[in-house]
């Protein structure tokens, strides 16, 4: 430590405001520097001697002060009193725990606000969509339900009846969906021309570029104008395309959907039956008894439908009474692939009328191809 540094610290040392380390280095400096040593000892002596004696004020000063203070307190303006109260309350309130609690309340409160905003927005979305009449997955379900209803009733019931049936067995939301569907149908009616235009476009595409290009357009028509005759028409064409391309499963799906519509019921069922051998071949191609299976299935179909118009079929059934039960066992697992459920599940419940006879099937397949 040099003299300059010493001078900077000498007052702190005198009033004991210096850390021990600096104090020690100061002492070391004073051992070698007589100037600083004498300066420090002189200052210390002065400080020790020059203690200012405290003069006592007059005795009445204290009572004077207290009187004046209480008078001031009484005449203190109300806002100063309020400030004092606030300061007192603040000294209690502004403790860390309370501040932390306040922060927590703020954070949780604001996050609750955000949480509450979300359900409101999501509940608004379906309303907006149905107003526009755009198809949504939920609405398609509703439409299917509405179309399924008349099929279940097995009658040519008009649309309103179907809707009441759907609403009757369905929940409230289901009923709402049906209503939405009604709205959508009305919208679709308005857009009938555009549906026709789209369908024509798809057909011309098929004519010019083939099935591959047209399929997406047919699908588009089916989705955009779901429920209209143009959509059904598009589905029919699309199904034909799928069949041509050998995609039996997709075709069957579409025919299955069309079969629910009254005007396509017969045509679709015929097409489905036509597809059956294709599917059976595909499923049981590895099995050596594939032909036997088909034959057995045919036999079973004709034997169950006793009132089938073809007389030759009955003779065939009688001619092979032993073959039918034998082939029935392998026939059952054969039509099992899940994609074919639209057809397979319907077979047991359907009437003999639905199971078209071989002759009729042959005719329809000719016309289709």
């Amino acid at each position: 430590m040099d003299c300059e540094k010493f001078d900077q610290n000498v007052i702190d040392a005198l009033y004991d405001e210096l850390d021990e380390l600096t104090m020690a280095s100061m002492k070391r400096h004073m051992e070698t520097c007589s100037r600083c040593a004498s300066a420090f000892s002189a200052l210390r002596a002065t400080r020790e001697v020059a203690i200012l004696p405290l003069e006592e004020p007059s005795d009445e000063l204290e009572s004077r002060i207290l009187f004046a203070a209480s008078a001031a307190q009484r005449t203190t303006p109300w806002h100063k009193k309020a400030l004092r109260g606030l300061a007192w309350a603040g000294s209690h309130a502004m403790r860390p725990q309370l501040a932390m609690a306040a922060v927590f309340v703020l954070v949780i409160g604001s996050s609750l606000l955000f949480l509450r905003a979300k359900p409101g927005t999501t509940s608004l979305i379906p309303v907006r969509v149905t107003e526009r009449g755009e198809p949504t997955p939920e609405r398609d379900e509703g439409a299917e339900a509405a179309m399924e209803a008349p099929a279940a009733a097995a009658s040519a019931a008009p649309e309103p009846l179907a809707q009441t049936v759907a609403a009757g067995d369905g929940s409230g939301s289901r009923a709402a969906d049906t209503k939405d569907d009604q709205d959508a149908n009305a919208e679709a009616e308005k857009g009938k021309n555009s549906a026709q235009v789209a369908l024509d476009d798809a057909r011309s595409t098929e004519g010019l570029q083939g099935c591959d290009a047209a399929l997406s357009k047919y699908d588009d028509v089916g989705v955009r104008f779901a429920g209209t005759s143009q959509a059904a028409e598009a589905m029919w064409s699309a199904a034909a395309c799928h069949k041509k391309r050998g995609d039996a499963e997709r075709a069957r799906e579409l025919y299955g959907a069309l079969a629910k519509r009254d005007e396509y019921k017969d045509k679709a069922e015929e097409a489905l039956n036509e597809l059956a051998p294709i599917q059976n071949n595909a499923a049981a191609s590895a099995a050596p008894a594939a032909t036997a299976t088909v034959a057995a299935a045919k036999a079973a179909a004709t034997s169950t439908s006793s009132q089938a118009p073809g007389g030759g079929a009955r003779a065939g059934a009688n001619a092979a009474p032993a073959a039918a039960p034998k082939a029935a066992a392998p026939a059952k697992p054969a039509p099992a692939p899940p994609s074919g459920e639209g057809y397979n599940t319907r077979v047991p419940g359907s009437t003999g009328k639905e199971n078209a006879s071989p002759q009729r099937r042959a005719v329809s397949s000719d016309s289709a191809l």
Partner: protein
Amino acid sequence: MAPAVREDVTDEVLMMRFQGGDRSSFAALVRKHKTPFYNFIVRQIRTPQVAEDLVQDVFVKIVQNAADFKHEARFTTWAYAIARNLCIDHLRKMSHRKHPSLDQPSRADDDGPTLGERTADLSPGAHVERAAIGGEMQTRIVHAVEQLPEEQREVFLLREVGHVPFKDIAEMTGVSENTVKSRMRYALERLQNALSEYEDYARALR
């Protein structure tokens, strides 16, 4: 006696209690600080009557501005800032009235014995001779302090009477801490010169 218990309580706690409406805490503050405040003021104003009035004003201001006192602050720093401002205001007023305070030092010299009487009780246990020398010495110290330049005197009084840290003095007076310490050193050196003839007595007394 309740005030005896209060002696241990810090000024800040007393102030907080007063903010909460406890008047006895204020009385304790008055009892504890009236003498240091009086000495801080009277060594600058030099008129005992006026100094007592100003001490009263300091406590009235403390009552009026109690809401401004934050419990993190040091009570003495806050209160001496009030006292300092009152002194400055008073001295400014006096300077407009043909410097009447300039007459005071001579009177202080005349009052020497009286001052010695008043401060004699500071060393009650000392024997007569020592008290007499001490009294004379004390009078000399008081006079020397009053003769200090205003800036140095202010720092000396705040540190020696008010026990305000240098850092707080720097904040209060608006100068750097080093400047405050320099002023303190100059003040001590002046006092040293003024009391040099008594230093031998002082050493003898120890």
